[in-house]
């Protein structure tokens, strides 16, 4: 197990290097000049020499090979560079927004798991019953309704019924739990509903398949209580694909909540990503892509560890 973990961790490094190189060159294929957007987008009279001076100050006049070398050397010492738009370090810009996206992702995952897994189990165990049909209708609607649209409905409902919206601004849950949860429960719900639908459907399908396995029939034949058959044998094995889905969805949520963050005015990674792309802020985009890649890699590692925990055969292999 330890060897397996070490091998996986070592594989992270070439993966991230590959991502860093790819994103560096791919971004620069897209036309557009961040300096022109920064200085001229509001229509003010800015002369060409002011634009040239700013390009020089940002190092954008250097040859591509020099920019690439600086970038890779910076990465080697953990320096993601500075935002071309604000001049702040990329790490700092990300660190400010990360807690919001991370917490929404955690909350949405909790909602998805706490609702999706039990509903999926109930649905699988009572196949073709009214329970199963109800859960399936809810799940299909969760898959069909876009999360951001549900978010907009939530906003409208809060305005229409309570004439109220949560305060703008992120407060840490450790500082003020009420303010924190009051603000973030709504985006978590709007995203968590679709997420729960995915989890419920996956849980149901996996459980139905596992319940047909020989070892489940054997356990029943041995006289094991049905509740134990389900909990100890069926659900545990059915959880394997669900763990994969939950892991992938969680990783996606960190940087993928672009529209939801806009709807709820959240200062998260998704919003930062959109702003950076619109402005052509190369260094920030590079840092964000590396962050997302790192998260996916870590989540995959955690999923693999959970797999080993859930399935002893994998551990022994």
């Amino acid at each position, binding site marked *: 197990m330890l060897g397996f973990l070490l091998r996986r961790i070592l594989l992270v490094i070439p993966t991230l290097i590959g991502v860093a190189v790819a994103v560096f060159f791919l971004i620069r294929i897209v036309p*557009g000049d961040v300096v022109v*957007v920064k200085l001229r987008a509001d*229509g003010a009279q800015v002369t060409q020499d002011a634009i040239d001076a700013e390009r020089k100050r940002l190092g954008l006049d250097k040859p591509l090979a020099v920019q690439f070398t600086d970038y890779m050397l910076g990465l080697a010492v953990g320096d993601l560079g500075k935002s071309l738009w604000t001049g702040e370090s990329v790490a700092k810009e990300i660190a400010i927004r990360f807690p919001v996206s991370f917490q929404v992702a955690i909350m949405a995952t909790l909602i998805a798991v706490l609702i999706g897994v039990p509903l999926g189990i109930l649905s699988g165990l009572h196949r073709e019953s009214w329970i199963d049909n109800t859960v399936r209708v809810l799940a299909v609607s969760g898959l069909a309704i876009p999360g951001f649209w549900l978010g907009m409905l939530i906003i409208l409902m809060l305005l229409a019924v309570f004439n109220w919206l949560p305060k703008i601004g992120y407060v840490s849950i450790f500082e003020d739990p009420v303010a924190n949860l009051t603000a973030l429960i709504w985006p978590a719900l709007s995203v968590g509903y679709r997420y729960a639908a995915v989890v419920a459907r996956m849980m149901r399908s996996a459980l139905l398949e596992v319940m047909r396995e020989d070892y489940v029939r054997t356990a029943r034949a041995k006289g094991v209580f049905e509740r134990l058959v389900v909990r100890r044998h069926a659900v545990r094995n059915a959880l394997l694909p669900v763990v994969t889905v939950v892991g992938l969805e969680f990783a996606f949520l960190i940087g993928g909540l672009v529209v939801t963050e806009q709807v709820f005015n959240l200062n998260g990674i998704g919003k930062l990503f959109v702003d950076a792309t619109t402005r052509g802020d190369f260094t920030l985009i590079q840092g964000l892509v590396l962050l997302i890649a790192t998260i996916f890699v870590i989540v995959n590692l955690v999923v693999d560890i959970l797999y080993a925990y859930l399935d002893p055969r994998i551990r022994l292999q």
Partner: protein
Amino acid sequence: MRHLSIAAAVGAAILAVAPAVAQTPKKGGIMKFAVVAEPPTIDCHAVSTFAFAHPARAHYSTLLKFKGNWDNLKVVGDLATSWEQSPDGLTYTFKLRDGVKFHDGAPLTSEDVKASYKRIVRPPPGVVSVRRALHADIKQIETPDPLTVVFKLGQPNASMMTHFASPWNCIYRAAKLKEDPKFPEKTILGTGAFEFVEYKKGESWTAKRFDGYFLKDRPYLDGYQAFFVRSTAVAPGIIGGQFDAEFRGRSPAERDQIMNAAKDRMVVVEGPWVTNLMFTFNTERKPFDDVRVRQALTMAVDRWGGAPNLAKISALKYVSGMFRPGYEYGLPESELVKLPGFWKDIEKSRAEARRLLAEAGVSNLKLKFVNRNVPEPYRPGGIFLIDQWRRIGVEAEHSELETKLFFDAMKEGNFDVLMEFISDFADDPSAQFDKFLTPEKSSQSASRHKDKLLDELFDKQARAVDPVERKKLVNQFEIHGLTQAYSAPLLWWQRIVVHHKKIKGWELHPSHFTAHDYVDVWLDE
């Protein structure tokens, strides 16, 4: 009952003749408002965006500033109590207020003004000064005493007084600039009515009253908080009470949405904006090098008929030439209607447009029209233009681009017609004419024309210190420019600001870059 009726009638009569009593400003309260973009930097000299002006301008003072509403705007002193311009226009002398303090308690002197302007005119290495070229005529700055500053110009500049009132010419502390010329990029330290408290990136900007402000009974507010939100979140945010205003401007639909939901507590102020849309022809591509084709395409557009309808759905409202309607230097309507594109009889105008196209040997013209992918008001403006051109048999491919791709297309000349805009902090011919010049003269010229007459007229009016002479030259420029139609103004914008009724004292300027020192703003609660 009869006595009550008489009493009511008498009361009403008294109210009808009694003069309106001005409200006494109240002290206290925190004003909360939204800003739909974030400043790229906190250095005043390095920005030209409302995203800085709205949250941060109130921390600083300038020599002069604009005061009044859009229909009675004038330049008044901010740090300056009086000023003199020499008859030859080469020397400007300012007397400064006594007793002005920076937020750290240090007194302001003429050395601070000198250091700040030097930084604008001759920025040290690594410092960004985006308006350096506009102040290039300043050759020397003298400080004969701590309360006097004298600017000596190398040649007359008719826009100099406007530049001294620029909201971007913030006065920094000379001692701090000497220690570190990049000091303003990291720290906010000014003499404005509000001290900086906190900037939470992506979220909010907080300020508090500066008790040492040079106007003893100001500011009225205890502070303000600006929230950085998406434009689509403004209307729900105002209705839901997250904030009480957004000062850049909303669309008519958003105005109606807010007023329908909250008219009991909101108020609308509207007026013309120093911002327009205009369409520019790429004269390096045929047939747009032919003045007849350009004139035809501008004459096809029914500005007078389209404006009232576009005003219902977008910020586009006013028909005017190269200047905001009402600006003293602009052509009067009686002259404007003689020029191509501004005839009141649209059928006659379109008939003439078709004739010009035929004369130029152009038929079944198809053009590539590049626009910004900004819904308001670029999209409705673009759709309107395409419709108007279709009426004379011209087909347009509407290409809507992201901002950075748009500027790239402009720079590379990858368009037939381009939707441009003018937006500045003040009505000023030198500012508004910049995009009408040749590329040799202006890096913002997209049409690539080679008409030197426009450059010559521009130079002459820029140096004309006599307002009468300047107006003549400005009018000549406008007539020639609109006739040649390298760029043709479409419509000027209306500025619609919806704010809570409790916000008093805020002035609607024609520019969204000014009026953000909040010195006179108070909350009636």
